[in-house]
């Protein structure tokens, strides 16, 4: 595990992206997988090829060199969301917790250009931040057994979209009709370092886009 900071900051995130880019561009023999987090990168390696100490030395070297890696230009992605109602069953509770009207909550959620800090949990699930302070809400005490694919949730200061129908404990405020992960190609709609903006759509528009 390589730690690149002790708090969730954009600086730590940028160090994560730089190290990831370097290790993707110049793959180390025997390194089998990389799991980035908010301020860390888990490096999975073949223990027949490396001892922990050897790899640590090589990674320290990479880390020093990664300062010179240019950050790729951030891609901007716009995600349509149908907020509230059956699409976002927790919007009412989130509004109640903060004394907001639904339209104000939607305005707040879609006012921010979020950073994709990393992808994790399941294929294509992007951890986005930061949610405006007025919307910061903890997870549900008991996770749902089945969250519909496309659901947009809030967990503390994070927001994200469930790419698949899975169990989940985030507060659901809406749903996007877009496919977050393409099973045919293995491509994720969002990647680490992207910028994301949500915009509100009607249930009718949701149905149209879902068909498309």
């Amino acid at each position, binding site marked *: *595990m390589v730690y690149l900071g002790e708090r969730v900051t954009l600086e730590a995130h940028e160090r994560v992206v730089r190290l990831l880019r370097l290790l993707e561009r110049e793959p180390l023999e025997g390194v089998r997988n990389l*799991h*980035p987090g908010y301020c860390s990168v888990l490096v999975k390696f073949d223990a027949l090829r490396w001892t922990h100490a050897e790899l640590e030395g090589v990674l320290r070297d990479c880390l020093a060199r990664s300062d010179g890696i240019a950050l790729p230009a951030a891609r901007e992605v716009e995600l349509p969301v149908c907020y509230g109602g059956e699409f976002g069953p927790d919007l009412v509770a989130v509004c109640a917790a903060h004394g907001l009207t639904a339209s104000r909550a939607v305005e707040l959620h879609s006012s921010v250009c979020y950073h994709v800090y*990393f992808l994790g949990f399941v*294929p*294509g699930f992007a951890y986005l931040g930061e949610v405006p302070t007025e919307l910061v809400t903890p997870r549900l005490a008991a996770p749902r057994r089945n969250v519909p694919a496309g659901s947009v949730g809030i967990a503390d200061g994070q927001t994200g979209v469930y790419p698949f129908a*899975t169990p989940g404990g985030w507060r659901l405020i809406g749903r996007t009709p877009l496919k977050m992960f393409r099973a045919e190609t293995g491509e994720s709609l969002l990647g680490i370092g992207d910028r994301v903006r949500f915009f509100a759509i009607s249930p009718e528009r949701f149905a149209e886009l879902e068909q498309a």
Partner: protein
Amino acid sequence: MTIEVLQPGMFTTVQDLGREGFGARGVSASGAADALALRIGNLLAGNLEGAAGLEMTLVGGAFLFSEDATAALAGSDFAATLDGAAVEMWSAIFVRAGATLRVGATLGGARCYLCVRGGITVKSFLGSASTHVLSGLGGFAGRALRKGDVLEIGEKEGAVRSRRLSERGRAMMAPRKILRVTAGPQSEWFGEAGLKLFCENVYRVSEESNRMGLRLAGQTTLAPAKREMISEGVALGAVQVPESGMPIILFVEQQTTGGYPKIANVISADFSSLGQLRPRDEVRFERVDLATARRLFVEQEKLLASKEFLFR
């Protein structure tokens, strides 16, 4: 050549050694829960060790072979029969066209693998045939097998030697009841006392366990120091401790990142045993250092590479 699924069994999926390299997209490796068993099963069936096979869980299925085939059963003994005659585990099996292999209920651990010469052929997803059930990706239609599914078997030329796993090999594959662990990234949060408690507890595997994770129930709960946990990458075999204080071992279909502190990590050499744990099984943990964990893994891989050791 094809195999028709007459009965799917309790939970049977197509698995190989998984897809590495896509962690940054949130894609976990998946793959066989007892990868060692699959590797040996493939060698016995005359395949490369990473070919795709069927992973059966607790109760196996019934499979109709369209043509003559060579196969092998590896992992736990599920009391299989071929057209009514008992089938030996860990051995090359020669199957006649039209024969039915019936795999029963487990006599031991959680998983049994059916490997067929040529391998199960499915559309590759990110370089692997493995099923990731939660997201419905990979394998056969991204799901567990159902009655009536027809599996394609790859072509492979040449004869297969009639080989069996050696006694020493079988002894190596007997699942351990005490799993060895190294300290986890947040083990300090639990203190030495916490790690000691973890290793003294006798845990029971919960019914809610699956390929994503094994939930454990013990006599006493573990309580980490209250600190802010920042979500980070998690490794296979990581022992995370949620608010309940009861550990969860992240398994082959693990989430790629997690936000709970991790007290320990099951060592690679014991992953095979982890894959054989059944609900309600008892399990305990023993702490080793990183150097020991690596030595045990390297020794295991050396034995696996030795045909003299493996076969007779």
